């Protein structure tokens, strides 16, 4: 297996100094090139799990291997896209995307690489703009191009479209699917939206909260493009719903809030 998550536990101490389990006995294997969604209500530790894979957070126990190598710190083999684009405002779009390439490439090569990925997210015309001149959706596409520019084996996405409006999100789903088909990256995609996970992924890891555990591992084998298979998508949605009534109630109320606030 390409990504191996072995017995990962994560605890932190709360205000009264009592240990709280954020993640409990997480075991997960991911094949190379797979698009895996990690679905769960907020507080289930899904973002923490992704952060551990990124090397930004340490485990309390257990380890994660990618391609046989144990993860101890962040690395360019794993590109990360956050909920906020996290572009550097003092750099242009081009400079942002070449940021991770500065040390290993000549300027010209770095810019060529960056342009290739910016064109992939259809922003080739915006290379000399600054982030504040772009819309939220465009910023997020630059962030995706920036992560891809390092040519990582794995793409880690932490609710990357969570802060965007519905239409923009739908459009970016399509773009992400194309990018994934084109580049064959392994993608770990954290979301709290059931429909988003069904639309995009090969596999959905459903997590429960307090403590964060894996409740179910669902394979989605609906042919793409999935818009043409609405019925099958709904069946899986029902399946997840039925199986996880209690947890999903939390998800749904969260999604309602989410829909209301956007």
């Amino acid at each position, binding site marked *: 297996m390409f990504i191996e998550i072995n017995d990962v536990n994560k605890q932190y101490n709360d205000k009264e100094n009592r240990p709280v389990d954020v993640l409990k006995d997480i075991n997960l294997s991911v094949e190379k090139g797979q698009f895996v969604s990690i679905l769960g209500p907020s507080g289930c530790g899904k973002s923490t799990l992704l952060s551990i894979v990124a090397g930004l957070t340490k485990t309390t126990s257990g380890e994660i291997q990618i391609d046989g190598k144990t993860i101890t710190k962040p690395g360019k083999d794993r*590109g990360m896209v956050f909920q906020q684009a996290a572009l550097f405002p003092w750099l242009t779009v081009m400079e942002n995307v070449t940021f991770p390439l500065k040390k290993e490439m000549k300027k010209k090569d770095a810019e060529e690489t960056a342009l290739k990925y910016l064109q992939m997210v259809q922003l080739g015309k915006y290379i000399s703009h600054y982030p504040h001149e772009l819309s939220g959706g465009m910023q997020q596409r630059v962030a995706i191009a920036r992560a891809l520019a390092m040519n990582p084996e794995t793409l880690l996405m932490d609710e990357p479209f969570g802060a965007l409006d519905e239409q923009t999100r739908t459009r970016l789903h399509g773009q992400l699917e194309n990018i994934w088909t084109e580049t064959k990256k392994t993608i770990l995609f954290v979301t709290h939206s059931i429909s988003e996970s069904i639309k995009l992924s090969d596999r959905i890891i459903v997590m429960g909260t307090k403590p964060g555990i894996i409740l179910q591992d669902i394979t989605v084998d609906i042919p793409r493009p999935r818009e043409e298979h609405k019925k099958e998508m709904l069946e899986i949605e029902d399946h997840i719903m039925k199986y996880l009534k209690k947890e999903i109630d939390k998800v749904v109320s969260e999604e309602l809030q989410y829909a209301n606030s956007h």
Partner: protein
Amino acid sequence: MQTAIKRIIFFAAIIAFWEIGSRLELWHPLIFPSLSSVFSALVEGFQDKTLIYDLIASFKRLAVGLTISLIIGTLIGILLGKSKTADETLGAVILALQSVPSIVWLPIAIMWFGLNEKAVIFVTILGGTFVMALNMRTGIKNVSPLYIKAAQTMGATGVDLFTRVIFPASIPYVVTGSRLAWAFAWRALMAGELLSTGPGLGYTLRYASDFGRMDIVIGVMIIIGAIGMIVDQFIFQRIEKSVIKKWGLES
């Protein structure tokens, strides 16, 4: 009504009151000279070049003092922002020193350097250093953790992380720090010059006062105020505005 029109009417009223009041001798010219005599004193000062020499001398001291204070302030700020121990120890001292008016340092400066150029520059440096240091410190501490995480996932660590992400991310605070450092240094310089030897705007101010030339006193005060306002509004506030916009800090 537009702000500009309101201002023009306001200032016209003040100027009219000032000039008419002086001509009607509502107050003694030694207490407060007329606008026209202040104006002619300024014209005279620029014609015989004394005010020009004063301006050059003051700006030279300011340039040296402010530059040094910005450099020292930035370095201290970085130290306080990066090292918790330094912040807990040196930080407290800097915070205390910040509340000491810089002119209070002049007696020490005179003992160390004598009543000369060096003493005035020393006071000017102290005027700007602490406020710059405290702003730089806040800037470093307020860098969004998201930027740092993002940079780490792209392989940036250590010095590379600092020079390419942490420092540039805190530029808005560097600009604000510089603006305040300039304002504090300018005040400290004027105070220092008042008590020291010429040439310089502050020195001329005291000299004119000693000789009862109220027209020159008022004229020089107007120059000092105008320079302060112009540099603040037209240089620093503009830079600050564009940086805040670019760094996405607009509320």
